[in-house]
């Protein structure tokens, strides 16, 4: 098993100021041994993709409670792809209706988490998904 630390970008897209969830999840992921970069508030899709590239992260986790996810999430995905970061595990959470989660999933988003999610379960899920991605990469090489 690789000892490489999983690197996660926790990002707040749009004008949404609700950062309790993002900061709590960031803290828990860090406690679970991951390296976490938190963008702070009011980030545009371009800003988020640029940080993801600069920090060379394995995971991008978006937090949104403003209802703007259907406009912002797909744009973030496009901006990541444009920077050659289409391979990252792209996840997130917030107030997102189940139908929207399904639509975003069909567009290439991994699991999205709603209110009431256990944060340790998020960490374990990320751990498992990233290890899967790494072993696939390893198999290709």
């Amino acid at each position: 098993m690789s000892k490489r630390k999983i690197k996660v970008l926790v990002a707040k897209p749009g004008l949404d100021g609700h950062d309790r969830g993002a900061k709590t999840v960031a803290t828990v992921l860090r406690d679970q041994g991951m390296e976490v970069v938190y963008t702070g508030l009011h980030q545009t899709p371009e800003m988020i993709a640029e940080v993801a590239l600069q920090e060379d992260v394995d995971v991008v986790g978006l937090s949104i409670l403003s209802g703007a996810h259907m406009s912002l999430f797909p744009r973030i995905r496009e901006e990541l792809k444009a920077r050659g970061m289409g391979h990252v595990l792209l996840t997130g959470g917030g107030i997102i209706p189940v139908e929207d989660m399904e639509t975003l999933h069909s567009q290439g988003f991994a699991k999205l988490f709603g209110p009431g999610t256990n944060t340790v379960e998020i960490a374990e899920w990320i751990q498992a998904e990233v290890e899967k991605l790494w072993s696939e990469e390893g198999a290709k090489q």
Partner: protein
Amino acid sequence: MKPSTQDQSTSEARVVSSNGRAKWEAASAKAKLRDANFTTISGSELKPVYGPEDAEFDYDTDLGHPGQFPFTRGVHPTMYRGRLWTMRQFAGFGTAAQTNERFKFLLDHGQTGLSVAFDFPTLMGYDSDQPHSLGEVGQVGVAISSLEDMEILMGGIPMDRVSTSMTINGPAPILLAFYIACGENQGIDPAKLRGTVQNDILKEYQAQHAWLVPAEPALRMITDAMSYCAEHVPQWNTISISGYHIREAGSTAAQELAFTLANGMEYVAHGVAAGMDVDEFAPRLSFFFDSHLDFFEEICKFRAARRIWARKMRDVFGAKDPKSWMIRFHTQTAGVSLTAQQPENNIVRTAMEAMAAVLGGTQSLHTNSMDETLSLPTEKAVKIALRTQQIIAEETEVAHVADPLAGSYFVEAQTDRLEAEAEKYFEEIERRGGVVACTEAGYIQREIHHSAVTYQRAIESGAKKVVGVNTYVEGKDAKPEIDIHRIDPEVEREQCARLASLRERRDAQAAKSALDGVRAACKDGSNLLERFVTAAHAYCTLGEITEVLREEFGEYKEPKIL
């Protein structure tokens, strides 16, 4: 009764009571206890029972009758016998026309005051057609980019008879200017307008995070609003110092109390430093608290808030008008206490939180709707939330007696405990250079964050229970069977088209010179609200006005706390 007899009977009573206490201690030491976490929701240890030794108070100096210093028991002598609290549901979504319809629906169903929720672009001072606004227009509130939008929002609503609360902070004085101008265009003298503008920028930096310019110019705009309204809009509450968002961001009850009142004292100090007499503006300060699930802790928080504020205003700031000593506050039930799982249970949570707010003596109340962890509320959900207040007011008979829990050993002990914890924070904030320094350094944000993480861990370890989330869980990934209120993307196009047309229709020269007036006031220190009213009448947009402010004052930058 002779004194000697009295002494004798008192000492007999003491023997009996200490016997009782010894017996109780023996019995409770042997009792088998449930496996549970016996603390408040804020994590404060609770005793199994409270007695006279826990609550030592002097009735006149620590409690006072309702309407009397220090107002622990309420700000009115007869409390809700004179008038019930104002039932004020926070509402706003989509376009001004859609929200206007919701307002009329609420007024038709017995609501007694309006409360406007703005969308994120408006809260941040952007017009609906600016690049930052893409996808956010009308989503979490109503889009108001100009006086024209405000006129549609208030269309057909008698502004001299309905009081309106506006939850806006960074650009608050500009939205207030839109409201004043809108009233003038309806033929209403500003002196007749009643309402509140939140205008509490410190808690934005600390918790809610919709800001505009840095602290110094932001505080100046607040002071400008206070002095302008004292003269022209005397019935307007120029600020609503808010603990709600601090609590929702994760603070404990004591932190909510402490940081809110510390912010309040900072605004008072600024008003005084700007040369105003404290009694000139302090009666127009209003407050806004959260009502969370811990029933008694919340009631005690409201009581402690009144007592602390009265003492600070009289003894620290030397206010002489009793109206300056009174905390009048709005309450909203706790959004964070709602669950996406089994959403109907939220009706019960909200009812109990609303009851705590009423027993705590609130002046107005918003009850959350059961569906708010999923989307903006549907009309049905909002109606149930409003009916919850009406049931408390009309059926439970709790509104007949002021501060009914006073004198309870437990309630007085917790009120004292919360006051003492707040005082400790006041000292710590002072030691760290005051509220502005503590905010700019991220101290307050970090304290709130630590409490949020502690609470989350308590839920995840099972120390604190949440029905439907970590206990009595039903089908884990089941989709809630509940209607969702969605915002049509057409709203954004419609709003952008109207703005474009407004820019065509208005007198361009008047708009330009009004904006120049704002810029001049930024530089020369004259009252900004006065210039905003002129700019509103010239149909300058929110984004145009804030652009001037951003150019002149710069933008606020959040400190890194993580």
